[in-house]
């Protein structure tokens, strides 16, 4: 057995007749950060959303191929999407805190799952917010609305909210593209904090970001995976011409 936690084999995805993913083979080892890069419209978000079955929400989507999480087929008829999404959490491009207090945002998943022990909830809130590197900024107003925070703080609270349900994998879709540079670099710090304990897969449009934080980088184009390798190889010494052109800014 390998230590691969998530495997994708010959994954095709169609929006109606349009083929958006054309046979992706990509595996992820447990822990560490993988960045997905590529020109806009190449299928990064689409691919990411197949990994926790968020594409199920879109009508007329057809998916073929296999995705296995710890050996279990995510798309098997018996697969439980609710359970899958607890283990594979997701953070979106636009920070989307619920219109409740910071505290309630973080414990929402747990509370709905039935956790009532106040001490335990308090502990989870603190731990998650610390992991998300936002604790110091919000610890004095945990019971105020999360909507009153800045965009960058909101995004980190959203990350904490995902951490609180203790997933194994965290998917992020351009988590910093709606944020200013300072907030973006705080999110990067947050992600670097997480790489030892979680398998982080993040889409980014920002190549510098990928080179700063990612252990591994995957380059997508036109619905295909062109190349995946250690980040420094992708940036310094890519195997494919297309990758080199993209990295050096010749298109995209």
């Amino acid at each position: 057995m390998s230590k691969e936690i998530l495997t994708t084999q010959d994954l095709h995805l169609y929006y109606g007749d349009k083929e958006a993913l054309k046979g992706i083979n990509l595996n992820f080892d447990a822990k560490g950060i993988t960045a997905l890069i590529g020109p806009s419209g190449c299928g990064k978000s689409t691919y990411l959303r197949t990994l926790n079955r968020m594409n199920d929400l879109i009508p007329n989507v057809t998916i073929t191929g296999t995705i296995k999480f710890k050996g279990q087929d995510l798309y098997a008829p018996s697969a439980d999407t609710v359970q899958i999404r607890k283990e594979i959490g997701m953070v979106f491009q636009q920070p989307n805190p619920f219109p409740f207090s910071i505290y309630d945002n973080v414990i929402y998943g747990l509370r709905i799952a039935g956790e009532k022990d106040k001490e335990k909830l308090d502990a989870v809130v603190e731990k998650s917010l610390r992991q998300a590197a936002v604790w110091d900024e919000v610890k004095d107003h945990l019971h105020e609305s999360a909507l009153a925070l800045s965009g960058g703080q909101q995004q980190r609270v959203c990350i904490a909210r995902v951490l609180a349900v203790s997933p194994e994998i965290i998917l992020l879709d351009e988590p910093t593209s709606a944020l200013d540079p300072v907030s973006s670099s705080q999110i990067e710090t947050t992600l670097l904090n997480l790489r030892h304990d979680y398998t982080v897969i993040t889409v980014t449009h920002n190549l510098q970001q990928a080179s700063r934080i990612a252990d591994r980088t995957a380059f997508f184009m036109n619905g295909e995976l062109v190349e995946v390798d250690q980040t420094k190889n992708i940036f310094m010494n890519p195997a494919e011409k297309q990758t080199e052109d993209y990295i050096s800014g010749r298109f995209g």
Partner: protein
Amino acid sequence: MMNPKTQNKVAIGTLYGVAGLVVLILLALLGYILVSGLPQLSWHFLTAPAKAFLKGGGVGVQLYNSFYLLILAMLISFPIALGAAIYLYEYAKDNWVTTTIRTAIEILSSLPSVVVGLFGFLFFVVKLRLGFSILSGAFALTFFNLPLLTRSIEDSLRTIDTTQREGGLALGLSRWETVTRVILPAAVPSILTGVILSAGRVFGEAAALIYTAGQSAPALDFTDWNPFNISSPLNPMRPAETLAVHIWKINSEGIMPDAKAISSGSSAVLVLAILLFNFAARYLGKRLYKRLTSA
């Protein structure tokens, strides 16, 4: 040809003029009703029972009936409308079934209330033998209210961003948990506003009630709260003329000497109640939204 700048000025001027006219008409109407009605109001007028032939009757029973009917109608229609709206907006796929349901709601909401009243008369009063009663009236009001309320709740759900739904699902909440624990709480202020506004419409409704809740208001004994006694205010099987129906009736066949004054007074009460509903809707909606979204 005018130049674009003049054109713009003329257009804006016209729009202001039209808007001003609408406001003016509204103010004139309100002013007339309040000026002729307010002097009639007194504690006695608001609480005393009506008199058929003599001076000095009040609208106490009618006022009570209006509220009782309103509450019953809301108790029946709100859960149904909420369920329908959640189904239509959060669950239903876009296919011919939902299109049909939506069209049906559209048509129902544009039915004249007189037609709803006649249907209520034939079905609830006659066929189901409920007679002229609060219950028949409440059912008729439900038919009148349901489509409007369903649409307004659906609109409230629509104002909640998709990213909130994705956020809930991505946390491993089920579809149902996402709807009930994330979407509904976020939509509460807007739903509440819709409910109160529709309560205003229901409160002022006459045509749907004339042949269902009836046009008589038997005296009530406000010390008797056993719903099975005929003079109990809670009895749902008694006929119950409401304020709006009362106004209609006095104006068409009122023979008491002070009919004009009573009709003016009742109109003022009705208008005030509806204004109150509207302001309450705004105030509560805003406050709740603030409570939910800020410190």
